[in-house]
């Protein structure tokens, strides 16, 4: 196998790249995407940023890469503050970001264009990277002729050919099927651990717990709204990362637990369970002071998945283990966690350790016919979801029992960033429609109280 230029000896502990107290607010959004985030990337280190969607991991990656500026805080490259593009990095993208009109070779050479290397030199280095990453024979192919895994290999070759000091990876395996992803992951791990590539540090963004545990020296678990580092965990020793042993299971468990309990004190929990990176002045983030939220964060879960999940749990004896559920339902961990959170929020299920249990009402919900199912959902939703309650009250009070969606969205934007507010709104509309609490006319942008409910109100008014 070919090797690229050998790396100079690693100086453990020296910080290559750091973000200090970074905050990011988009445009006119009132709620930041990232708040007070401090991350250090040290020589020889592979770190993974892990967290639910909307926790600003990818934004942080882009700020560290210099693709966007932080709204506040500093990015330090070798200790020097810096703005603008970071020259010694490369990025592997989730969507591969290959130029479809260039061949594999041309795509890989692209990374070298700006270095001013001669045509021959460029070709030689590109071919070497192609060889290294196992793309021999595909040099003249166009990306559309390649499978997903092969495309991402081109993405890796293009990144490695520039011999970056720091390699960024933004969900590099999430667009691939499981086996392909695992295979590529293994190869990357070999290249990295055997120092075949001159890259000194890797920063990977992922939502996949397994991926983070099997690759990273250090794992930063992010929380959402606004994005912040909840806890830093030490990764496993190299020997234990890939094989399925108790240490690995324990770490995966811990992360599962932390991610399913977004409001819990993650640092305290992690300290009981596994090695946590000791807090130092610039290390783990200080807990963020946040104003109390008016509404809970609704997980991004559609009603079909929600009801289907409860049915499934009922079929497996009213309980399930997260790990097994993720496997049996072939779901990504974060999607499953969102489902669990939703059922938990509605009081349909409970979560203990890594077990999900249906509550009695959840059990009943799973057994009854559609009409009653909806009635149950209506009751629990009104009882538990503050936003839904609020909307129904507004609808009851409005003279025409109609309110503008715009108003609800504005209200939500006090608590959530723009995109997240939109998501919250869509979820609440989905749930509210199913519960037959109100209807929503997208073209007019109006929420209308449900017909029956409206008539009930009228009869009540007449009685009074």
């Amino acid at each position, binding site marked *: 196998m070919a090797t690229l230029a050998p790396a100079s000896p690693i100086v453990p502990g020296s910080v290559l790249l750091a973000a200090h107290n970074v905050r990011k607010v988009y445009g006119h959004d009132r709620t930041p995407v990232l708040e007070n985030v401090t991350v250090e990337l040290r020589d020889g280190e592979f770190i993974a940023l892990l967290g639910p969607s909307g926790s600003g991991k990818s934004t942080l990656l*882009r700020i560290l*890469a210099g*693709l966007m500026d932080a709204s506040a805080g500093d990015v330090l490259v070798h200790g020097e503050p*810096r*703005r*603008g*593009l970071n*020259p*010694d*990095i*490369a*990025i592997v*993208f*989730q*969507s*591969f*970001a290959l*130029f*479809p*009109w*260039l061949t594999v070779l041309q795509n890989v050479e*692209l*990374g070298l*264009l*700006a*270095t*001013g290397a001669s045509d021959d030199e460029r070709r030689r280095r590109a071919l070497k990277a192609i060889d290294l990453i196992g793309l021999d024979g595909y040099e003249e192919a*166009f*990306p*559309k*002729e390649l499978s997903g895994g092969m*495309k991402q290999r081109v993405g890796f070759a*293009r990144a490695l050919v*520039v011999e970056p000091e720091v390699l960024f990876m*933004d969900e590099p395996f999430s667009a691939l099927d499981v086996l392909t992803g695992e295979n590529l992951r293994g190869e990357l791990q070999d290249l990295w651990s055997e120092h075949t590539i001159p890259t000194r540090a890797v920063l990977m963004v992922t939502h996949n717990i397994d991926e983070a545990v099997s690759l990273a020296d250090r794992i930063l678990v992010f929380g959402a709204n606004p994005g912040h580092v909840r806890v830093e965990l030490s990764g496993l020793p190299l020997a234990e990362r890939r094989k399925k042993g108790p240490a690995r299971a324990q770490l995966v468990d811990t992360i599962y637990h932390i991610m399913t309990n977004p409001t819990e004190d993650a640092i305290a929990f992690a300290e009981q369970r596994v090695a946590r990176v000791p807090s130092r002045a610039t290390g783990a983030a200080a807990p963020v002071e946040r104003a109390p939220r008016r509404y809970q964060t609704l997980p991004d879960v559609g009603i079909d998945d929600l009801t289907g999940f409860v049915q499934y749990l009922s079929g497996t004896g009213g309980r399930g283990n997260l790990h097994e559920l993720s496997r049996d339902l072939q779901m990504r961990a974060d999607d499953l966690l969102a489902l669990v959170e939703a059922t938990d929020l509605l009081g349909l299920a409970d979560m203990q350790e890594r077990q999900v249990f249906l509550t009695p009402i959840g059990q009943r919900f799973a057994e009854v016919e559609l009409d009653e199912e909806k009635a149950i959902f209506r009751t629990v939703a009104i009882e538990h979801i503050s936003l839904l309650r609020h909307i129904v009250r507004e609808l009851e009070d409005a003279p025409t029992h109609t309110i503008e969606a715009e108003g609800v969205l504005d209200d939500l934007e006090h608590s959530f960033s723009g995109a997240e507010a939109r998501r919250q709104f869509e979820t609440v509309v989905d749930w509210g429609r199913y519960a037959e609490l109100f209807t929503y006319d*997208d*073209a007019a942008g109006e929420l209308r109280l449900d017909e029956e409910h409206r008539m009930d109100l009228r009869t009540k008014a007449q009685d009074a």
Partner: protein
Amino acid sequence: MPAPRWVDALMLVALAAVGYGVMRAAAEWRAPLTPGMRIDLSPTNLPYYAGLSTLRMAIAYIISLVFSLVYARVAASSRIAERVMLPLLDILQSIPILSFMPGVVLGLAAMFPGRTVGLELAAVILIFTSQAWNLAFSFHQSLITIPRELGEAASVYRLGLWRRFTKLELPYGAIALIANSMMSWAGGWFFLMASEQFTLGDKNLRLPGLGSYLAAAADAGDTRALGLGLGTLVAVIVLLDQLLWRPLVAWSDRFKFEQTGSADAPQSVTLDMLQRSAAVHWVQVRLLRPVFSFIDRRMSPMGGTAAGAPPTQPRERARGALVVFALAGVALAAVLAWGAWSALSTVASLTAGDWGYVLRCAGATFLRTSVALLLAAAWTVPVGVAIGMNARLARKLQPVVQIAASVPATAVFPVLLFALLALPGGLNMAAVALMLLGTQWYVLFNVIAGAMAIPSDLREAAMVYHVSGWRRWKTLILPAIFPYLVTGMITATGGAWNASIVSEYVTFAGRKVSTLGLGALIAQAADSGRFPLLLAGTLVMSAIVIAGNRLVWRRLYVLAESRFRLE
């Protein structure tokens, strides 16, 4: 497999012919200007005239293309630029171009006294204004839809402005640019006749070309020459389609942004032959590649010291560019303000009676355009749906429709006048007919595309549940083609208003004929040099077109996109 030798030989002959043509044309441009230049109606002159017209179109097109690329790139580079430049483009696109021709011709004629060059420039400018706007819109649209990660990859690998443009932006926009280039040429042909003859006061100026040939033939009542001229025009259009556009479309398929290969890529025999030709290969490897490589190196200042370049430099450069832009913006604003002020003071001289007349004219033209659009929709919807929903019919009819559509309506106009002018209200009918001829194709093409896009499972569902007759139209076909219909109608409306200027006031067989209408008012005012009225008419027409777009069409479009888009 190498191409037969004769392809190479043919290419050499073509090259020689084009070279000779350009030299002849250059001689023509230096010639002294003679009012009322005679056009020789003998058929042997037709190829020469056709060549001159095509050359004019080509020059205007190249200018349009360069303008569009630069304009769209600058507009996409900052939010402020975008906020000013896009509405400006929208307004430019809605202004009746022909109104400004007298002024432009006058100015250019004064700049080159006694020479044809001024007039040639005026012709090129007129054609440019009919070609540029949609190109700029299309490229801007491409630029802002480049996938985010692709743009980030370009930044991370420091492609720089030039390489980013040539490796990412231009390829990404290529397919849309080529499709719009074809539309631009069609738009250019529409002004073929208007661009080759100008009336300035009592002077009648003509440029040699196919358009003035057609006009002269109509003036002389020579039906044979008229027919021959039209035939030549169609031949030129078909040749260009086969030799230029089709190969380009087939070639540009490589720029399709797709993750997987598709089966039915466009094909072109010409392209296949060119790609196998030894001469083309030689030019490509020996000439084009080194030249591009040289330009590439010269245009990329980063070469050699990418990693070592001080990090602040690009920012400072950007700031410098910003200052230049700001200054240019201020200058432009000053010129605009002065222009607006002068325009206002000119228009202020009009009496209330004049304004009443302008509004009456506007009403008449509004009625005419509405009738034309309704007629267009009335026949294109059933026909388009019939063609679009029947694959066999579509294959057979599409080329015929394309050729019919490619004949510029203005060129057929003299024939129409022949037939209709003797009848009562003849010009009225002829005007509506011209608007219809010029605009119906946009609607038809869009309806066909819409009908073809109806998913077959929806059609099968309609069949299974016995939805037929009018109910089938109401629940399936009309909603499905609605977004396409709106798109077609938007283009058609602008075209119809523009056509009013050439159709409501005509010089035919030595006679001036006119009817009540905004187009007639503009053409008449230009003819007689009544600038206040010309300006008022132009402003009113622009206002109507823009208001129509904003108040009616854009809303319908949004509705169409949100409610009826099949995904």
